[in-house]
């Protein structure tokens, strides 16, 4: 992987670097920003914020609900045993199991969506990363740039350090 990137101590500088890269004609999808915290209050922190996760949670919940319904009522009918004079398929108690499985389905579906869409667990091999990020620096860079030399000035902002990866 080849890459060129800058490390910035301040999110304002990182934002500037992102804006410069855009001005230099780099597509938004090609700009990588890596940080040790989410920057909700900066524009670069909002890129790629759209997610289907809430809908997946709803789908997971519906799957859980259906599972709960089938698990309770089908097994109750498969071997009908009378207890306490209650109906064989007893709705009141079954609703509790259905509720729990609904919530479980929603939770598991959200987490699966998170793992898939955030590519976790994944290998960092061959991907842009710098351990200095965990010291608080914000990495802004471009992987496999067509013209690294042209991008370096865009990243060279006062207070930032420009690095490149060649391998």
């Amino acid at each position, binding site marked *: 992987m080849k890459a060129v990137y800058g490390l910035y101590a301040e999110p304002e500088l990182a934002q500037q670097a992102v804006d410069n890269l855009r001005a230099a004609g780099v597509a938004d999808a090609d700009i990588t920003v890596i940080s040790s915290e989410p920057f909700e209050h900066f524009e670069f922190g909002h890129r790629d914020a759209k997610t289907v996760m809430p809908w997946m949670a709803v789908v997971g919940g519906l799957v859980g609900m259906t599972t709960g319904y089938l698990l309770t009522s089908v097994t109750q009918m498969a071997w009908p*045993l*009378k*207890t*306490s*004079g*209650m109906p064989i398929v007893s709705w009141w*108690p079954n609703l509790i199991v259905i509720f729990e499985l609904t919530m479980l389905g929603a939770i598991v579906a959200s987490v699966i969506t998170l793992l898939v869409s955030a590519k976790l667990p994944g290998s960092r091999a061959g991907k842009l990363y710098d351990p200095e990020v965990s010291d608080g620096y914000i990495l802004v860079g471009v992987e496999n740039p067509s013209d690294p030399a042209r991008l370096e000035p865009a990243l060279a902002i006062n207070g930032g350090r420009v690095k490149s990866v060649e391998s």
Partner: protein
Amino acid sequence: MAYRWGMAVDLDRCTGCEACVTACHAENNIPTVGAGQAARGRAMHWIRVERYYEGDFPDVRVKFRPVLCQHCDAAPCEAVCPTYASHQSEDGLNAQVYNRCIGTRYCGNACMYNVRFFNFFNPEWEKPLNLQLNPDVSIRSVGVMEKCTFCVQRIKAAKVLIKSENRDLKDGELQPACAQACPTTALVFGDLNDPESRVARLSHSPRGTKLLEDLGAEPKVTYLQKQAWYEPDAH
């Protein structure tokens, strides 16, 4: 028509002799736990005779009340069991399947009559007492609940017998051990679905009440006793 087993207990006849308790122990292989364990609340009596005293000394009257599983139609012990060990049989018995029981003891707590008993240890019989065990009744291991079955082994045997002889069950022909042993015939067992049976008629007696009837468990045991308006001055 299916059977619906029930019992009538005539408190006016009960002398508190506890023959029923002994017979039940012998018939159903109920272990005796010894004095030490009994003092720690581990005694098991599927039927017990409760004693209540009325009046002040020396003018005291004792009342006896045999209490056994009431085989409730809406038995609170059944639904709470997570493994269906406790459930209602087709004959209206409150059945306890020992093999399914994992020993949550929830049924014992839910039962308002406290007629469910728990095997805190594996049962033991000193030799030669092991030779008197009833071969028709399984021994319960540690960790399971047990309770009055209305001598289900006798019910099963009677059903086989009448089927082989191709006839109906005669009223009074089938008795659990307690009723059989009762010298005053205070305990009457039979089919509540047969309106002519003694137990069905006694269950409709004006002397009849159900134990803790207002809790809604719909017990199938009826207690018969002289009603209060009979007594001029009890105290």
